[in-house]
């Protein structure tokens, strides 16, 4: 086995949600390790804590106990501002709904994460944005506003946006949950390609059994616990 730092190491992640009498523990000590280049599907029934887990892994939320390391950086031990910088540097997010900024063009939306570090306006950055739009297959829509794009196109823009910071880890929360099967399949193929061609490490929350079946590894979550971890190495080249 190669001696490389795993992209993600999460240990004993615990998270309580809600306040007062409604408060309850949603995750009960979750351990996950993801190696570079893996394409992992996270599955589980609705309410099992998949989104909660994803937010913790992506540094959008603080765990009540446990730790998260992305590429060797400990997310649990830093303040909010530092966490924002780490998210910006290490993580890409794709959501079920294609949250784009409505006032900005497709290209500007793709470049937006770079604005957070004062970039996104150089010739190189714009070239990168256009290249990513080309990779997701809608380079010709670069100047369009989100409302001028179809749902599938908007989700492609969101995927391109999640890649613009060259993230160590791409996190997606039911990215095709809101798309028809043709579009869903196209987005799946896109993820597959990114993983194969760029070696992009991906963790996707999905309900789609097809999706899950076609990934390298399936993590099963049930009631806030990891109850299954299947690796299917034969798909890797």
């Amino acid at each position, binding site marked *: 086995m190669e001696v490389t730092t795993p992209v993600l190491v999460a240990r004993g992640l615990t998270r309580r949600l809600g306040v007062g009498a409604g408060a309850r523990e949603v995750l009960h000590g979750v351990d996950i390790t993801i190696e570079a280049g893996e394409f992992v599907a996270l599955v589980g029934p609705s309410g099992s804590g998949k989104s909660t887990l994803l937010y913790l892994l*992506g540094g959008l939320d603080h765990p009540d106990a446990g730790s998260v390391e992305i590429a060797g950086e400990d997310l649990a031990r830093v303040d909010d501002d530092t966490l924002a910088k780490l998210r910006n540097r290490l993580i890409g997010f794709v959501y079920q709904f294609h*949250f784009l*900024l409505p006032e900005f063009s497709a290209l500007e939306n793709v470049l937006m994460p770079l604005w957070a*570090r004062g970039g996104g306006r150089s010739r190189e950055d714009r070239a990168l944005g256009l290249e990513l739009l080309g990779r997701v297959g809608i380079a010709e829509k670069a100047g369009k506003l989100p409302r001028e794009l179809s749902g599938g196109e908007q989700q492609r823009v969101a995927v391109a946006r999640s890649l613009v910071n060259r993230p160590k880890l791409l996190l997606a929360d039911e990215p095709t949950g809101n798309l028809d099967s043709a579009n869903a399949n196209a987005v799946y193929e896109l993820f597959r390609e990114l993983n194969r061609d760029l070696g992009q490490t991906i963790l996707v929350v999905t309900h789609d059994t097809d999706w899950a079946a076609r990934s390298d590894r399936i993590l099963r979550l049930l009631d806030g616990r990891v109850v299954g971890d299947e690796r299917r190495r034969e798909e890797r080249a």
Partner: protein
Amino acid sequence: MIDHLRIAEAQLRGRPRQTAIALASVGVGSAMLIVTLSLTTGLSEDFLKKTTESSANAEVLARRPQGWKPEKLPLPGEVVMALSRHHVPDEKRAIRALSGVLAALRSLPSVRVATPAVEAQAVLVYGTVRRSAALAGVVPELERAVTSLDTKIVRGSWAALSRTPDGVILGSQVARALGVDVGSHLQAVGPDGGGLPLKVVGIVASGLSQVDKTLALVNLPLAQGLAGLSTDQATTVRLALTDPVEATRVAREAEQRTGYVCRSWQEKNAASVEAFKRQNMITLALVLFTTLVAAFGVANVLVQLVADKRRDIAILRAAGFSRHDLGMIFLHEGVLLGLLGSAVGWLLGAVLIRVVAALPVDFGESALVRNEHLQMAEHPSFYFAAFGISVVVCALAAVQPARRAASLEPTAILRGEH
């Protein structure tokens, strides 16, 4: 540098109707401020200008300064003697040894012109019409160097007074009340009852009601006779100074030299200036409320915007914008509304000033100052004040919405949208 302004601007442009409402309220608020500053400053400046035009830079009065003692006067000996020798308590109030006092005043380097005058209440009689007036005997050629009343002659001429020993120049409202014009003959009845025939040689309209309603200028000897004073006595000496701003300092010097009270134009008008200041402060305080209303408009628009933009806020946070960045974006929106709103206010204010200045007004004869139009002042400082206040107020109005934007939890929003 993160370009918060770029996102702020885009969000505002994405909400044109709400942005327009906010801009309009800020614009109206700052225009009100500009117009009010223009109006209040214009009124007090106009009053002050007319007042100083029709009165001297300083006036020596027929009164002794407090604690004045003849022997303590730091004057050349013979003048002290002359002053004290002639001082008899029972006599009429007057500046005595006028020639000595004039010489002492004219020796002061800051005094350009010193001219004596005799002021006396008199009743003017024309046929059956009687009118009380503030009769003033002056030396016409010197008087014109001390006030600019000579430039306010509307009928007849100033020079005619020097040529006509029994001539009188009347205030326009006095003349109107009596029904006289240049060439008319009338009678002046002094405090001791003696009648004096006068011939109208000029009419003055200073614009200042106090002056135009009471003025009756005659030659000095005539007034001295009417008031029962000798030719070496006067009730005031009026001064024109090389530097009117220094009038109060010169007045103290003149008191030292002459042993008579001397009042600068600033001291004389201090009460009116104070009254104007107080009145302006009250008006401005009221107008600042308009600005507060505008601030509420801005706060309202921004609170709504933060609520509408929860998703965008979550996305920006997830992509690596910090809480501070989000706060800054909405703070920039407030500042932007303030900047653009005060630009609207500048335009609106400049137009309103011109419109109001063009409106014909008539406050009637009882008004302090008579004008056909409101005297609107216009200084760059009004615009800068309105600009500064608008921007600060809008930035303050944005603080609460900005805090709200910064405090939003992205996970709660992302979860809520599932």
